[in-house]
């Protein structure tokens, strides 16, 4: 049986190679070879998954992960890491190597031209190529995940949600909206793509495109603000940050599906946890500074309803409200170093904002907004989220970006810690400290440390993937939102 499936796997891989070769030798049309390549990659992934998980039992889902070179940081894992990293470096900084050219694509990118044209009315960009392959991975490996956890309904529903949001909200709908509105400048049309994960939402070029984008542009601007200030806090209050991170988000989508074989590689040490807290909140601070600077100088340069001074006053209000809330309502929920850092950072922010408000200083944080913007785009937007975030899956685990870098995860995590009803509960004293939960936690949370003490797990980094509960051999862990109603 296994041999037969392997033959099928080879068949699809040959088809994929055939598609590429045929295209480059100009024997096949671009659209036919693209279809051949995409379909054969998809089925190669799916058939591989079928051969492994179709008849596998639940308890065998993670057998051998530490014995296989690809998933134990062995040779194959390192090769994959280099390949993925290389791919990201090319996509971000050397797209011409793939054939991306302003005056007409060639090579690999040109293969996507007619598909791109059909969807969005333009020839392909390297981002279209990337988006297509990304979606393909989430769908293919999504099927694999569905098969692997076929007995667990939470995993089924969650994975279908991830696949749905990627295919429609991240990929198809934005492309089609672009086609329907050909006169508009580019702006992000992915309604689930929230600031600060979408760090350029408030950059001047993007704001301009939104403001010139007629109804559609205004919709995305207002929706973007609603998402940040209303939708996401409300959903996080009820369900925890998982509603986004492991049900909707594209980065999470790739980590959960294509990255599933690497989830156990995340570092569980307390040292890693400490580093995580500094880096992720550092990135969050960075994106906040950048955004305030950029918006402020945009408002200085453009006459709009919102005056620059009013904007600064709103920012001051938000910082003060935040500080007061933390101080009065969640003192006992935060560690001392967290409280201290929050106090220091809030004070510095306040001083800078007030200074600019009274002096009319152009660079709010004494650094040019454009410089901040380009640093952020390079170091965080590209190098961290892409190159390290995905390229290092086989080394640091699948959620490196989500755990150490994502400012969105930092905000949602803070909300989760401070006011959400979500937590993972422990079933009395049933924990046997086996370590399956901690091992499979992609966020590097030492779940067992809480479970063996019979404590609930309330951690800002928890994305609520539910795998700890799935792999627990004694049924000890449960993701819960509501009150436990034992009322007698």
């Amino acid at each position, binding site marked *: 049986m296994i041999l037969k499936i392997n033959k099928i796997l080879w068949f699809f891989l040959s088809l994929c190679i055939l598609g590429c070769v045929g295209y480059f030798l100009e024997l096949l049309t671009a659209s036919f070879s693209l279809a051949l390549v995409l379909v054969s990659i998809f089925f190669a992934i799916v058939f591989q998954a079928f051969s492994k998980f179709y008849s596998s*039992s*639940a*308890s*065998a889902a*993670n*057998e*051998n*992960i*530490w*014995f*296989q070179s690809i998933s134990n940081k062995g040779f194959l894992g390192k090769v994959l890491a280099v390949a993925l990293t290389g791919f990201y470096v090319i996509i971000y900084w050397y797209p011409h190597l793939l054939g991306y050219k302003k005056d007409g694509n060639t090579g690999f990118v040109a293969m996507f031209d007619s598909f791109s044209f059909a969807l969005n009315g333009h020839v392909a960009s390297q981002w279209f190529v990337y988006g297509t392959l990304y979606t393909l991975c989430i769908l293919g490996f999504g099927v694999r995940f569905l098969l692997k956890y076929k*007995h*667990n*309904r*939470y995993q*089924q*529903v969650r994975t279908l949600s991830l696949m749905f949001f990627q295919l429609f909200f991240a990929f198809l709908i934005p492309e089609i909206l672009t086609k329907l509105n050909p006169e508009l400048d580019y702006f992000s049309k992915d309604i689930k793509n929230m600031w600060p994960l979408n760090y350029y939402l408030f950059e001047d070029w993007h704001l301009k495109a939104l403001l010139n984008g007629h109804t559609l542009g205004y919709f995305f601007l207002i929706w973007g603000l609603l998402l940040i200030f209303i939708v996401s806090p409300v959903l996080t209050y009820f369900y925890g940050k998982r509603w986004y991170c492991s049900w909707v988000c594209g980065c999470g989508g790739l980590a959960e599906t294509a990255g599933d074989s690497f989830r156990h590689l995340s570092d569980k*040490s*307390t040292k890693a946890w400490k580093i995580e807290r500094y880096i992720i909140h550092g990135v969050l601070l960075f994106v906040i500074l950048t955004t305030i600077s950029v918006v402020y100088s945009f408002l200085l340069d453009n006459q709009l309803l919102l005056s620059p001074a009013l904007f600064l006053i709103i920012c001051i209000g938000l910082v003060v409200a935040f500080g007061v809330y933390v101080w009065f309502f969640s003192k006992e929920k935060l560690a001392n170093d967290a409280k201290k850092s929050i106090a220091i950072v809030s004070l510095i922010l306040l001083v800078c904002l007030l200074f600019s408000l009274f002096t009319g200083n152009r660079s709010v944080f004494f650094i040019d907004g454009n410089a901040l913007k380009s640093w952020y785009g390079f170091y965080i937007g590209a190098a961290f989220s892409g190159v390290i975030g995905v390229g290092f899956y086989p080394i640091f685990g699948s959620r490196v970006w989500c755990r150490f870098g994502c400012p969105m995860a930092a905000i949602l995590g803070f909300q989760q810690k401070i006011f959400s009803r979500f937590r993972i509960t422990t*079933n*009395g*004293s*049933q924990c*046997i*400290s*086996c*370590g*399956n939960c*901690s*091992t499979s936690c992609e966020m590097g949370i030492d779940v*067992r*440390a809480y479970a*063996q003490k019979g404590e609930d797990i309330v951690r800002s980094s928890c994305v609520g993937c*539910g795998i700890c*509960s*799935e792999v627990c*051999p*004694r*049924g000890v862990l*449960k*993701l819960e939102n509501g009150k*436990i*109603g*034992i*009322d*007698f």
Partner: protein
Amino acid sequence: MNTEKVYIIGNGVAGVNTAINLRRLSNVPICMVSDEADFFFSRTAIMYIFMGQMRLEDTQPYENNFWVKNKIELKNAKVSKVDPEKKVIFFSDGGFDSYSKLVIATGSIPMQLPIENSSLKGISNLYHLQDLEKLSETYSNIKEAVIIGGGLIGIELAEMLVSKGIKVTFLIRESYFWSNIISSREGELIETQIQKHGIKIHFETEAKQFISNEKAEVISVETSKNEMIFAQYVGITIGVKPNINFDISSLELNKGILVNENLETNLPDIYAAGDCAELRQVANGRRAIEAVWYTAKAMGESLGKTLSGNKTTYLQGNWFNSAKFFDLEYQTYGIVPAICSDSQDEFYFEKDDKMIRFVFDKISKEFIGVNTWGIRLRQDFFERILDTKKDIIFTIDKIEMAFFDPEFYPKYGKEIKETFKKLML
């Protein structure tokens, strides 16, 4: 020497929980001695190491620097002798030290079969890390295996061997699985699981003798039904017994080390906890030796307090336990007998390979206990039911509060109530 030092023999769950709870309350020097492993690991997890799901370090509940940080000294040594009068502990390498208090937490050892030839190559238990290492080195030469004894370790061993493609046959002395703990109807559930994984079971069958080749390796097992089963590996998992294989003169022993309700032995300043301890007085329906993780942990917690100077009685509490048979999870709350006594009644709920068995008092209807198979139930719920002595009618009425399965899983509340109503009419 008058210096205070608490020695703990054994770094399993009882010893470790004693040490950690003592450290929370006191600064007394603590030394844990073990010759099995450098660091505390979860014994129940060694099957996952074999199956490649975890590494040894993943089964260790505390980071290696935890012990230094908490000033708990770890000593890799074997204790050869203790002099309770002079309060001196001797190690097999010739070293010795004096102790102010001594905790014996040596756990269990596997029981052996009274069959000649039991020491042939390829015949083994699965208990210590060393058993696992041996199996890891040799499994690639094994095509067929026989497992003798149908307990929890036997099932785990079967799962391990099957994961490597080894053909497994079970020899079970009783007429169904785990017959001293569960009913035959529940046993069938386990049997189904086992057969689903391609394992053969011979009930009411024992091993009569082992046949070897010229290299003293086992090649087959002759059963009490005179059948020959080829096997290059024989796992003996017929249970465990307290590990009391050491030299402490005048320490009172029965099957285990006899202790009172404060876990004190008959000798001053010597205590015992975990699998090796045997309680002199037992709560109703409980056993004097309960070789399970949870008991060892609870004993360690109360002993830690006692050693800090705050004498704490070990309370047996409500019985609970859990296990996993391949894909089938099992939890139990309260004392569920294998077969109900005349004064007890029971009620089964069964659906899609899942089962819950409730046991209650025939006359008063008081809830006695529950076994659940494939449906996760909340411990707090049943603790409350047992503590407040609720009856079965109340329990079933509130059963929705007890479910602990993940979101989107089917809830069986309505069906359980309907089944119960029909039965009670």
